[in-house]
């Protein structure tokens, strides 16, 4: 038997990922991080201690068997690694790229206590990409059960729910308002971070499960959620329409030409290919000096897109300090490398008019951190007499989103006080047979959390429909004790604990 690995015997340094040079990539939309090759992956897999208490699994919102798949990589059994990953995560190529690993799995990795954590995300991406390259997909034998399930929204939440329901034998139709499926993965996250080819490959896998995609369909207005259940023959519906509705700052000058939301910039650039203007028809406001307000992933994407579109100067304006920036660490780092000028502890006061209704610049005030607020973060407060102006011709707001109102306007589903869809712990809404999850329930969150919600809703839907999966112990909608192949509501079998 191989010698037991210890923190001292493993490769001490995290295996770096090859990246496009910062100067070169700032001029193209090709992927920045090139990913591991087999050699890199084998070396990195060596660094996993295969800890018996497996803290990383608990750190992953969907509970991937992380040591399990890493062990398979070490055995050069990539197909085996892929099978383990796809047991819990439908989109390894996507999550490996966009998950905030440093606060999830890698944040609790034992190796990370003394060295840099195992690069779980990079390994996950490597396996996912290998599967795409090799054309692997895990299509189980599916026996149709006669149930029709409708999914509203084709983002990660909708995709995950659709996959689980299709695997259970349901006839699944996904409705999407845009002309292409994928949600934020398609319209928001740019190509250099998540190439379209990856999304296409994942959607193809879903189609292989028999899932139908109906684009150009605005649910709520073309037909309502209630009509889907009452008239269109759907036995259950999942709503994953995302957050949408970008917040504006509400400061003077908000409506000047040259002020737009990051969502608009990114949608024009990614989904509508405005960056290929004039081969594509959609125009895009291009700034010479761009100021992006906010420091989340959306803000980083907007900045890095602006650089690639040829901006000379890109500023990041954020009222808190760098430690509070909600973006993935790697994205902030990449933005810095590409030349973004960060202004931490700076808050916009007004947008300045050039006299013709367009943006000339921005007036900001310096902030300092005061006493902690309810969220435990120190609240930024303005520094007296610290206002200053700077020049900019494009201002991009990336300061969060509110709930999209369409569902509330068109259905009986109860909303919570912030306007998001209200659900119980099984993700059931107030309308029988209708479940919801993802950003439209939690507010803007992450891809993996949205997927987790989609899968959780799928479990609840199966319970609601009375679908049993004889191959798997049934863990009820909320997890906990396992029942073998039985619906929780029919309490006619003894509960057992699975070791």
């Amino acid at each position: 038997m191989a010698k037991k690995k210890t923190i001292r015997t493993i490769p001490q340094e995290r295996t770096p990922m090859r990246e496009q040079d910062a100067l070169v990539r700032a001029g193209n939309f090709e992927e920045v991080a090139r990913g591991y090759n087999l050699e890199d992956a084998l070396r990195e897999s060596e660094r996993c201690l295969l800890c018996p208490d497996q803290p990383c699994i608990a750190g992953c919102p969907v509970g991937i068997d992380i040591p399990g798949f890493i062990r398979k990589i070490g055995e050069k059994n990539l197909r085996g690694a892929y099978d383990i990953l796809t047991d819990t995560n439908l989109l390894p190529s996507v999550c490996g790229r966009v998950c905030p690993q440093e606060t999830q799995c890698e944040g609790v990795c034992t190796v990370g206590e003394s060295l840099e954590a195992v690069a779980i995300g990079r390994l996950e991406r490597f396996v996912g990409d290998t599967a795409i390259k090799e054309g692997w997909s895990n299509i189980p034998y599916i026996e149709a059960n006669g149930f029709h399930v409708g999914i509203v929204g084709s983002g990660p939440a909708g995709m995950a729910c659709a996959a689980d329901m299709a695997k259970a034998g349901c006839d699944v139709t996904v409705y999407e308002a845009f002309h292409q499926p994928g949600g934020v993965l398609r319209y928001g996250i740019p190509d250099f971070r998540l190439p379209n080819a990856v999304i296409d490959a994942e959607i193809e896998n879903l189609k292989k499960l028999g899932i139908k995609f109906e684009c150009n369909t605005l649910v709520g207005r073309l037909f309502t959620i209630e009509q889907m259940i009452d008239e269109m023959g759907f036995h259950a519906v999942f709503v994953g329409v995302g957050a949408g509705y970008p917040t504006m700052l509400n400061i003077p000058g908000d409506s000047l030409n040259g002020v737009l939301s990051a969502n608009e910039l990114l949608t024009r650039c990614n989904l509508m290919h405005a960056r290929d203007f004039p081969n594509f028809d959609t125009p895009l406001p291009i700034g010479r000096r761009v100021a992006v307000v906010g420091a989340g992933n959306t803000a980083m994407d907007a900045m890095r897109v602006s650089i690639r579109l040829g901006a000379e100067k890109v500023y990041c304006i954020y009222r808190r300090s760098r430690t509070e920036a909600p973006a993935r660490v790697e994205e902030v780092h990449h933005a810095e490398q590409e030349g973004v000028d960060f202004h931490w502890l700076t808050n916009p006061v007004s947008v300045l008019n050039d006299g013709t209704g367009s943006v000339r610049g921005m007036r900001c005030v310096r902030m300092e951190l005061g006493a902690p607020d309810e969220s435990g973060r120190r609240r930024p407060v303005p520094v007296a007499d610290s206002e200053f102006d700077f020049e900019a011709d494009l201002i991009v707001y990336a300061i969060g989103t509110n709930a999209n109102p369409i569902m509330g306007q068109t259905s009986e589903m109860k909303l919570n006080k912030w306007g998001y869809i209200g659900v119980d712990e099984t993700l059931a809404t107030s309308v029988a047979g209708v479940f919801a999850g993802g950003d439209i329930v939690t507010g803007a969150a992450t891809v993996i959390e949205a997927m987790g919600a989609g899968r959780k809703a799928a479990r609840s839907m199966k319970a609601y429909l009375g679908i049993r999966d004889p191959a798997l112990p049934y863990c009820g909608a909320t997890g906990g004790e396992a029942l073998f192949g039985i619906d929780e509501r029919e309490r006619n079998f003894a509960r057992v604990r699975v070791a």
Partner: protein
Amino acid sequence: MSNFEIVAREDFSDVTYLLEVRHPMMARAAKPGQFVIVMQNEQGERIPLTIADFDRNKGTITLVIQAVGKTTRQMQQECQVGTSLYGMVGPMGIPSPISHAKKVLCVGGGLGVAPIFPQARGFKESGAYVIAVLGFRNKDLVFWENKFRECCDELILCTNDGSAGMKGMITDGIKVALAGHANIEEVVAIGPPVMMKACADATRPYKIKTMVSVNPIMVDGTGMCGGCRVKVGDEVKFACVDGPDFDGHLVDFDDLMLRLQRHKNDEKLAHERWSENCRMTNPPGPGAGDVLAGGTAAQSDVLELPDPSEDAPGG
């Protein structure tokens, strides 16, 4: 949903044309005041167009389009009966509330004449006395006069040069109507922003409720981008999900008109290049620059045709 077939077409003038697109489900769902977002082809932009009419029996949606920008001109050339649109999504927006007003004035300027029609019909069906005021630049541009005569109690037609109906701006027509009827309870106005602004100004002294349908630049039409925001009173509203109908006495029209000019340079450039390509005998293949860019119908409209009564994109 795919394959949105064009089943009928009518040309009202050398700039205005009507398309009837097959979409039975949408024809069932559509209500007055709603709009669609259309993509002519995969490289195209998403342009909002008001639903001018819908036929539940035939399963069709009617769009009336003015060829003003690159996309709408290209559609004028290429959208023949039997061809299909790449995408059409809707019906979008909150339907116009058809109130129980007993006497209403429906005002349509230029292309706004088309989308005001389902509203006029809706009011008529709910039992109101309906007066329509329609404004065109000249006689050649007039369309749907008979359609309106059939469903309205009174019709005031205005042309700028007097070649049909009364001579004057649309606001003159409104003044005539207001002078003749003291008990008008509601005014609905659709047309270019300058016209709607003038209309709101005309009714403000009388404190008559005046609804307008705004037409800002849009991308998604689902509330996701904020590109369509308009100032209404003290609030910022997204026209695609909070509108497109708002209280005309509260809408900040100057702000709306300014924002409509956002892509004016792109638009001009795109159209110049596209026209050049149209003249070429052997246009290059797709991706090589034969499909050139444009803004929405709305913008260039406002830019190129200063005449307030005729430059309405209508949605």
